[in-house]
């Protein structure tokens, strides 16, 4: 009797050990395999941005492509890519004597597609998660509108649809779904275009090429070459979210 019980326990422990080993090996292998994969990132060059001419090329292109509503009430505003004061974009960055041409102009803000996205960590339904290529994606089908992610994002990159966005669309792009009241949305790095080998809408919409998009894991990509030649800031690096949107200075 005791013999079989002991046998059973030994067998159980062996199997459990093997299972744990297999599980962790899968995770490690996944990480190693993921290293050869793509890692999308964006570089913003504020010095090229023609903000003073009232250029809105990137914002217009993005909002038209993704059916982003223009809700006049700022409390109900929906933002994917927008202009923000330098001091607010780089809230923890001291810039006492930096050229006013840089600090006085609005800076483009968008989702940073963080390497360690706090929004994805808090989402209770995995409606938002980090894809293997680094894009922090949103699955509106799963969003329950709890707004944990809105609270978690330190960059204000997420907007909640407090009202039905449809009446605030000048034109509906039928090839991209709109959203309904009660779900959260944000910039998706144009996942639907990137997956088909195209550049994001804002990058194509910028007449001055102030936005550069590419693969960080490819040393010859535009983003890597730009980052090699110019110094770049990231937003609130002290938070440890590792944003993948870079700002050239």
């Amino acid at each position, binding site marked *: 009797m005791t013999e079989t019980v002991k046998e059973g326990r030994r067998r159980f422990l062996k199997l459990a050990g093997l299972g744990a080993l297999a599980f962790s090996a899968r995770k490690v292998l996944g990480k190693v395999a993921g290293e050869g994969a793509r890692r999308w990132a964006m570089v913003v060059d504020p010095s090229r941005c023609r903000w003073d001419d009232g250029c809105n090329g990137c914002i217009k292109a993005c909002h038209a492509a993704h059916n982003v509503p223009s809700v006049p009430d700022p409390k109900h505003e929906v933002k994917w890519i927008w202009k923000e004061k330098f001091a607010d974009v780089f809230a923890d960055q001291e810039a006492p004597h930096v050229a006013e041409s840089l600090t006085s102009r609005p800076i483009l803000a968008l989702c940073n597609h963080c390497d360690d996205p706090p929004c994805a960590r808090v989402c209770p339904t995995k409606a938002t998660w980090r894809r293997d290529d680094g894009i922090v994606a949103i699955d509106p089908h799963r969003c329950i509108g709890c707004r944990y992610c809105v609270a978690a994002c330190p960059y204000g990159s997420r907007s909640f649809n407090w009202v039905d966005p449809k009446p605030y669309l000048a034109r509906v792009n039928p090839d991209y*779904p709109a959203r309904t009241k009660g779900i959260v949305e944000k910039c998706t790095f144009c996942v639907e275009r990137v997956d088909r080998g195209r550049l994001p809408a804002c990058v194509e919409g910028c007449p001055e090429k102030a936005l550069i998009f590419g693969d960080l894991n490819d040393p010859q990509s535009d983003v890597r070459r730009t980052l090699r030649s110019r110094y770049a800031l990231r937003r609130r690096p002290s938070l440890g979210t590792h944003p993948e949107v870079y700002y050239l200075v």
Partner: protein
Amino acid sequence: MRDGPKIAAGLALFLGLALSPVWQRVAAGRARQPEPVIAKPETRCLASREVMRASHMRLLDEWRQAVVREGRRGATDADGRPVSMSLTGTCLECHSNKKDFCDRCHLQLVVKPVCWGCHAEAAEKS
């Protein structure tokens, strides 16, 4: 039991009305069939009519999973030709008449798919 006949008549009336869907069906020989209209027939199909009728919702669910969560956007149809997994881009190319196609069955069966809350109908497409 003086009210016996009245009660019996009332019961018969009640049962007749309450079970009207059943005896109407029996009288007609079969249930009322919704008749969805295909806007562009004779074009390439993803699967046979029977398969689509029974499990189009499963197919849409699989497509959604593949595109949104896994980033796979291409599939193959019944003949092995490539198709893009897109509701508005592929399905609505032929089934562009939501009212006479999707709604015919959904209304009768009181199924309320929430797709159209976000995805554009083909009418909005033109």
